[in-house]
């Protein structure tokens, strides 16, 4: 499935949309990390929590759990909220 990548992570992927697969967000992120080593830890902490300011949207809806099930045709966007100066 297609995964939208925010600009702070382009140093890993090189492009703003990549292909990745997985039956859940957890598996999808694992696939992203296989393709782009180091990406996962910038987004998910060592306790498997999505880091503050990082958000996943699946088919336009915000998803807060990495166990969320995915279908092959889903569209996933990884978004970074920006705050502070």
């Amino acid at each position, binding site marked *: 499935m297609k995964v939208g990548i925010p600009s*702070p*992570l382009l140093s890993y992927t090189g492009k703003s949309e990549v292909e990745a697969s997985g039956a859940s967000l957890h598996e999808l992120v694992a696939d992203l990390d296989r393709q782009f*080593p*180091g990406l996962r*830890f*910038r*987004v*998910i*902490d*060592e*306790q*498997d*929590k999505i*880091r*503050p*300011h*990082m958000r996943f949207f699946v088919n336009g809806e915000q998803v807060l759990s990495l166990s969320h099930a995915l279908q092959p045709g889903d569209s996933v966007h990884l978004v*970074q*909220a*920006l*705050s*502070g100066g």
Partner: protein
Amino acid sequence: MASTKKPRIVAAKTAPARARRTPRKSSAQHVVLLVATRKGAWLYHGDAARKTWSTSGPRFLGHTVQHLVLDPRDGHTLLAATKTGHLGPSLFRSRDLGRSWHEVKQPPAFPKAKEGEKGRVVDHTFWLTPAHASEPGVWYAGTSPQGLFRSDDAGDSWKPLPALQDDPRYRAWMGGEQDGTPDGPKLHSVLVDPRDPAHLYMAMSSGGVHESLDRGASWTPIVKGLEVVGGFDASNIAFHDPHCVRICPSEPDRLYQQNHCGIYRLDRPSDTWKRIGKNMPKRVGDVGFPMVVHPRDANTAWVFPMDGTSVWPRTSPDGKPAAYATHNGGKTWQRLSAGFPESQAWWTVKRQAMTADANDPVGLYLGTTSGELWMSRDEGARWACIARNLPEIYAVEAALVS
């Protein structure tokens, strides 16, 4: 408007990007300053006389760089502790003195908690220390919140030292999220005895100063003689807030410490710190963050006092920046302010943002939270500005490179 004496400026040449990527051809050693800031890192290469400085940077623009350290065992490997405001923390390594960088494979991270337990999360790596000269590729890292990690592969992967992670006493002394500095509680001042790779010290803000004789497998607090904020119990390790601890390279049995509550000296095997800051001028006090030791003379050390009165502004007392030096182990102190602004300069210098090189005479360097980089070529007698308008400076390290 109050008059302020214009500080002397040392020329800083900003090299064009192409020139920056060209390796230096001179084999003579020169000082490089490793400047870590809230918005990136810069390297300043000095000439042989340390009079002019060429700028290389920014690297990691927009990333918070807590510490940038050269491996003295090979002279060309750099480790940088980075984070952005939003991405998780990471470390980057350069094998060519900063010309190219690669992210390490596995930055410091706490163990995954057992089901039902609350695990800890590394917010950022705060402090980097190369291990003993006999242990090439080994590094230590102190994190926020407090954790101590070791790498055996030149920073590529890191493991937490379990004595701190698992000991309930240490977890209690570290306090919670509401303790520690405004930027989070930190483990810092990881020191390696140059005579013994297994002999380590480290400090926690908050959480005291500690010694290990077995490469960090076990630790013992060393806080006797240290004061804590009035009304609190000094026997409770959690109340101790060391800001910066340094070991004297020329006499490793001597340590100096800038604490939240004063300046101290410790001469091993004694385990009792002596408050040498009582000998500072009363109007200045002995509050501050950095502590700098002389590379060859254990009786000489420098501090940079901050205002610790009323609400603790932690700026230069009276808006008049000055370093203070002792040449007799803290019995007396000498004010060193020539070249600094004479008034209306409300500087803050963080604990990692003042350092010395190993030249003779020693060069001193400091960075302010207002983004100014200053140096002295003569052990503090006269100061000059190297750079202005940088982001908030977190750390300054000086290294001799070829």
